[in-house]
């Protein structure tokens, strides 16, 4: 059974992955805002965490957020009182782990559907336009928009 990006199941599985991770490990207020079938990102994004994959399909999971948003998530993961003490390396490391957990969680859905998916190591980059980061072969994608600790957060899943 092939997975189609337009399927409601894809959105539901991505939301499920985010919900599980935030409830288990990131105790900050968060809410789902919107979802579009496009490769895009939340406004004001300052950093991206990217987890590429190969297999039946090639593509990537990409989280975009602000530096403040990354600090808030990192502080919550580490149970620190203030996000102000988080340095750039720690924030990048934490965002890499976040996209890694999302990809690992979603992989179960993909493999259960009979497709192969091999995850790469996560990478974190600064930037403001996901279209400059996504490969030119990226054809189809879905982006979820959220608010985490009051900061914009987006999750894009795209395939080539």
């Amino acid at each position, binding site marked *: 059974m092939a997975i189609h990006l337009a399927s409601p199941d894809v959105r539901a599985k991505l939301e499920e992955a985010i919900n599980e991770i935030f409830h288990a*490990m990131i105790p900050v207020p968060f809410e789902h805002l919107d979802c579009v079938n496009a490769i895009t990102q939340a406004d004001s994004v300052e950093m991206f965490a990217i987890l590429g994959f190969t297999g039946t399909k090639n593509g990537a999971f990409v989280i975009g957020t602000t530096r403040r948003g990354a600090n808030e998530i990192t502080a919550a993961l580490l149970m620190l009182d203030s996000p102000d003490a988080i340095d750039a390396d720690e924030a990048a490391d934490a965002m890499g*782990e976040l996209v890694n957990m999302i990809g690992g969680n979603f992989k179960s859905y993909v493999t259960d559907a009979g497709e192969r998916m091999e995850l790469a190591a996560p990478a974190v980059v600064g930037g403001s336009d996901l279209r400059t980061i996504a490969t030119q072969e990226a054809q189809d994608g879905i982006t979820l928009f959220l608010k985490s600790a009051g900061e914009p957060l987006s999750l894009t899943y795209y395939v080539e």
Partner: protein
Amino acid sequence: MSRILIVDDSGTMRKIIMRVIRQSGIDAEFEEAQDGFEALDIADSGNIDLILSDINMPNMNGLDFVRQFRAKHGPDTPVIMITTEGSDEVMERASAVGADGYITKPFTPELIQRTLQPHLV
């Protein structure tokens, strides 16, 4: 107090794991390694009660580490794999090289306590 070796290439994830273990109520002190090579060096020093190892790491991954650790140190020290991928295939590979259990990320203090405590008697 138990002495636990945390093997993960992410320094932040090592901190998170240590924080959650403490939060779970397990009384432990920690050693840290960022890949299998470092972990083998630390394991050689002895006195490790339990190892928690990631699977996907550069230089030497978790499965190769466990295979080499078991070959050198035998079956006595429990090794729990900690991974983002909860597929049967990954778990079978971990079991085949000598891992005693696994934890899938994300994890809670309750899951950590439930998985680790039986190995820390």
